Protein backbone atom coordinates (compact mmCIF):
# COMPACT_ATOMS: atom_id res chain seq x y z
CA UNK A 1 0.00 0.00 0.00
CA UNK A 2 2.69 2.43 1.03
CA UNK A 3 4.53 1.95 -2.23
CA UNK A 4 1.41 2.69 -4.21
CA UNK A 5 0.72 5.85 -2.25
CA UNK A 6 4.32 6.94 -2.61
CA UNK A 7 4.24 6.25 -6.32
CA UNK A 8 1.02 8.21 -6.68
CA UNK A 9 2.47 11.16 -4.84
CA UNK A 10 5.56 10.90 -6.98
CA UNK A 11 3.55 10.76 -10.18
CA UNK A 12 1.47 13.78 -9.28
CA UNK A 13 4.48 15.77 -8.23
CA UNK A 14 6.47 14.77 -11.28
CA UNK A 15 3.71 15.62 -13.73
CA UNK A 16 2.97 18.79 -11.84
CA UNK A 17 6.57 19.88 -11.96
CA UNK A 18 6.74 19.12 -15.64
CA UNK A 19 3.70 21.28 -16.26
CA UNK A 20 5.04 24.08 -14.10
CA UNK A 21 8.07 24.21 -16.30
CA UNK A 22 5.96 24.92 -19.41
CA UNK A 23 6.05 28.31 -20.96
CA UNK A 24 2.36 29.19 -20.77
CA UNK A 25 0.34 30.21 -17.81
CA UNK A 26 -2.40 27.67 -18.18
CA UNK A 27 -0.32 24.51 -18.02
CA UNK A 28 1.49 26.06 -15.09
CA UNK A 29 -1.77 26.52 -13.27
CA UNK A 30 -2.77 22.96 -14.02
CA UNK A 31 0.63 21.85 -12.82
CA UNK A 32 0.26 23.76 -9.59
CA UNK A 33 -3.08 22.13 -8.98
CA UNK A 34 -1.64 18.73 -9.67
CA UNK A 35 1.25 19.37 -7.32
CA UNK A 36 -1.08 20.53 -4.63
CA UNK A 37 -3.03 17.28 -5.00
CA UNK A 38 0.18 15.37 -4.58
CA UNK A 39 1.34 17.44 -1.67
CA UNK A 40 -2.01 17.12 0.03
CA UNK A 41 -1.80 13.36 -0.20
CA UNK A 42 1.74 13.57 1.10
CA UNK A 43 0.73 15.67 4.04
CA UNK A 44 -2.24 13.46 4.67
CA UNK A 45 -0.12 10.34 4.64
CA UNK A 46 2.23 11.75 7.25
CA UNK A 47 -0.41 10.53 9.67
CA UNK A 48 0.19 7.10 8.16
CA UNK A 49 -2.30 5.03 6.21
CA UNK A 50 -5.25 3.72 8.12
CA UNK A 51 -8.01 1.58 6.80
CA UNK A 52 -11.48 2.01 8.25
CA UNK A 53 -10.47 4.11 11.19
CA UNK A 54 -12.13 7.46 10.54
CA UNK A 55 -11.46 9.90 13.32
CA UNK A 56 -15.01 10.09 14.47
CA UNK A 57 -15.30 9.15 18.08
CA UNK A 58 -17.62 6.23 18.68
CA UNK A 59 -17.87 3.97 21.66
CA UNK A 60 -17.06 0.87 19.62
CA UNK A 61 -13.90 2.16 18.06
CA UNK A 62 -10.66 2.37 19.97
CA UNK A 63 -8.20 3.11 17.23
CA UNK A 64 -8.47 6.12 14.99
CA UNK A 65 -6.66 7.54 12.05
CA UNK A 66 -4.50 10.52 12.89
CA UNK A 67 -6.92 13.44 12.66
CA UNK A 68 -4.32 16.17 12.74
CA UNK A 69 -2.90 15.74 9.22
CA UNK A 70 -6.46 15.55 7.97
CA UNK A 71 -7.21 18.89 9.50
CA UNK A 72 -4.02 20.28 8.05
CA UNK A 73 -4.83 18.97 4.61
CA UNK A 74 -8.27 20.47 4.83
CA UNK A 75 -6.74 23.82 5.50
CA UNK A 76 -4.22 23.25 2.76
CA UNK A 77 -6.92 22.32 0.27
CA UNK A 78 -8.83 25.49 1.00
CA UNK A 79 -5.78 27.67 0.80
CA UNK A 80 -4.69 25.89 -2.33
CA UNK A 81 -8.09 26.53 -3.83
CA UNK A 82 -7.85 30.23 -3.05
CA UNK A 83 -4.41 30.38 -4.57
CA UNK A 84 -5.37 28.51 -7.70
CA UNK A 85 -8.37 30.75 -8.15
CA UNK A 86 -6.09 33.70 -7.86
CA UNK A 87 -3.55 32.50 -10.40
CA UNK A 88 -6.22 31.49 -12.83
CA UNK A 89 -7.58 34.99 -12.75
CA UNK A 90 -4.13 36.46 -12.86
CA UNK A 91 -3.41 34.41 -15.95
CA UNK A 92 -6.58 35.77 -17.46
CA UNK A 93 -5.70 39.31 -16.60
CA UNK A 94 -2.18 38.87 -17.93
CA UNK A 95 -3.54 37.51 -21.16
CA UNK A 96 -5.77 40.53 -21.45
CA UNK A 97 -3.13 43.09 -20.61
CA UNK A 98 -0.11 41.58 -22.28
CA UNK A 99 -1.90 39.91 -25.18
CA UNK A 100 -0.08 36.70 -24.59
CA UNK A 101 -0.37 33.91 -22.10
CA UNK A 102 3.34 33.31 -21.96
CA UNK A 103 4.51 33.12 -18.37
CA UNK A 104 7.05 35.81 -19.03
CA UNK A 105 4.60 38.02 -20.82
CA UNK A 106 6.68 37.71 -23.96
CA UNK A 107 4.79 36.83 -27.09
CA UNK A 108 7.72 35.44 -29.05
CA UNK A 109 9.95 32.69 -27.79
CA UNK A 110 13.07 34.36 -29.10
CA UNK A 111 14.48 34.52 -25.63
CA UNK A 112 14.40 30.81 -25.18
CA UNK A 113 18.04 30.69 -25.94
CA UNK A 114 18.73 31.59 -22.32
CA UNK A 115 17.25 28.42 -21.01
CA UNK A 116 17.44 25.67 -23.54
Amino acid at each position, binding site marked *: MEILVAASVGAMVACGVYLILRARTFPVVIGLTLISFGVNIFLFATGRLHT*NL*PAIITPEQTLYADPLPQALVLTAIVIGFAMIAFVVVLALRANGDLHTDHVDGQPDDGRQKGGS
Partner: protein
Amino acid sequence: MLTIAVIIAFALITMAQVLNLHRLFTGPSLPDRILALDNMYIDAIALFILVGIHFSTTAYFEAALMIAVMGFISTVATSKYLTRGDILE
Protein backbone atom coordinates in the same frame (compact mmCIF):
# COMPACT_ATOMS: atom_id res chain seq x y z
CA MET B 1 -21.62 -14.29 1.69
CA LEU B 2 -21.83 -10.54 1.95
CA THR B 3 -18.08 -10.26 2.08
CA ILE B 4 -17.74 -12.19 -1.11
CA ALA B 5 -20.53 -10.20 -2.70
CA VAL B 6 -18.80 -6.97 -1.75
CA ILE B 7 -15.54 -8.26 -3.18
CA ILE B 8 -17.25 -9.24 -6.40
CA ALA B 9 -18.96 -5.89 -6.55
CA PHE B 10 -15.65 -4.18 -5.96
CA ALA B 11 -14.15 -6.17 -8.78
CA LEU B 12 -16.96 -5.31 -11.14
CA ILE B 13 -16.89 -1.63 -10.34
CA THR B 14 -13.13 -1.55 -10.63
CA MET B 15 -13.39 -3.14 -14.03
CA ALA B 16 -15.98 -0.56 -14.92
CA GLN B 17 -13.62 2.18 -13.85
CA VAL B 18 -10.87 0.73 -15.99
CA LEU B 19 -13.19 0.74 -18.98
CA ASN B 20 -14.19 4.30 -18.16
CA LEU B 21 -10.55 5.23 -18.04
CA HIS B 22 -10.03 3.61 -21.38
CA ARG B 23 -12.73 5.75 -22.91
CA LEU B 24 -11.39 8.77 -21.10
CA PHE B 25 -7.99 8.28 -22.66
CA THR B 26 -9.03 7.19 -26.12
CA GLY B 27 -11.88 9.58 -26.60
CA PRO B 28 -11.91 10.29 -29.45
CA SER B 29 -14.12 13.34 -28.99
CA LEU B 30 -14.37 15.59 -26.02
CA PRO B 31 -17.98 14.61 -25.32
CA ASP B 32 -16.75 11.03 -25.14
CA ARG B 33 -14.25 11.96 -22.53
CA ILE B 34 -16.73 14.00 -20.60
CA LEU B 35 -19.05 11.07 -20.66
CA ALA B 36 -16.31 8.80 -19.42
CA LEU B 37 -15.50 11.17 -16.58
CA ASP B 38 -19.14 11.50 -15.69
CA ASN B 39 -19.40 7.79 -15.51
CA MET B 40 -16.32 7.61 -13.36
CA TYR B 41 -18.02 9.98 -10.95
CA ILE B 42 -21.07 7.78 -10.78
CA ASP B 43 -19.02 4.66 -10.34
CA ALA B 44 -17.18 6.46 -7.59
CA ILE B 45 -20.48 6.64 -5.75
CA ALA B 46 -20.60 2.88 -6.02
CA LEU B 47 -17.13 2.69 -4.55
CA PHE B 48 -18.11 4.89 -1.63
CA ILE B 49 -21.12 2.71 -1.02
CA LEU B 50 -19.04 -0.43 -1.19
CA VAL B 51 -16.46 0.97 1.16
CA GLY B 52 -19.27 1.85 3.53
CA ILE B 53 -20.68 -1.64 3.45
CA HIS B 54 -17.31 -3.28 3.53
CA PHE B 55 -16.26 -1.43 6.64
CA SER B 56 -19.77 -1.18 7.94
CA THR B 57 -19.54 2.54 8.34
CA THR B 58 -21.77 5.39 7.26
CA ALA B 59 -18.93 7.83 7.20
CA TYR B 60 -18.80 7.88 3.43
CA PHE B 61 -22.45 8.39 2.84
CA GLU B 62 -22.12 12.14 2.55
CA ALA B 63 -19.37 11.84 0.00
CA ALA B 64 -21.52 9.54 -2.10
CA LEU B 65 -24.51 11.81 -1.76
CA MET B 66 -22.37 14.80 -2.58
CA ILE B 67 -21.38 13.27 -5.91
CA ALA B 68 -24.94 12.32 -6.65
CA VAL B 69 -26.12 15.86 -5.91
CA MET B 70 -23.31 17.86 -7.39
CA GLY B 71 -21.31 15.59 -9.65
CA PHE B 72 -23.36 16.52 -12.65
CA ILE B 73 -22.43 20.15 -12.30
CA SER B 74 -19.00 19.63 -13.73
CA THR B 75 -20.46 17.66 -16.63
CA VAL B 76 -22.95 20.42 -17.24
CA ALA B 77 -20.28 23.07 -17.02
CA THR B 78 -17.97 21.25 -19.39
CA SER B 79 -20.76 20.66 -21.86
CA LYS B 80 -21.79 24.24 -21.68
CA TYR B 81 -18.19 25.21 -22.24
CA LEU B 82 -18.33 23.20 -25.46
CA THR B 83 -21.61 24.58 -26.68
CA ARG B 84 -21.53 28.16 -25.48
CA GLY B 85 -17.98 28.80 -24.39
CA ASP B 86 -19.31 31.13 -21.76
CA ILE B 87 -20.32 29.01 -18.81
CA LEU B 88 -21.66 31.74 -16.62
CA GLU B 89 -23.23 34.35 -18.80
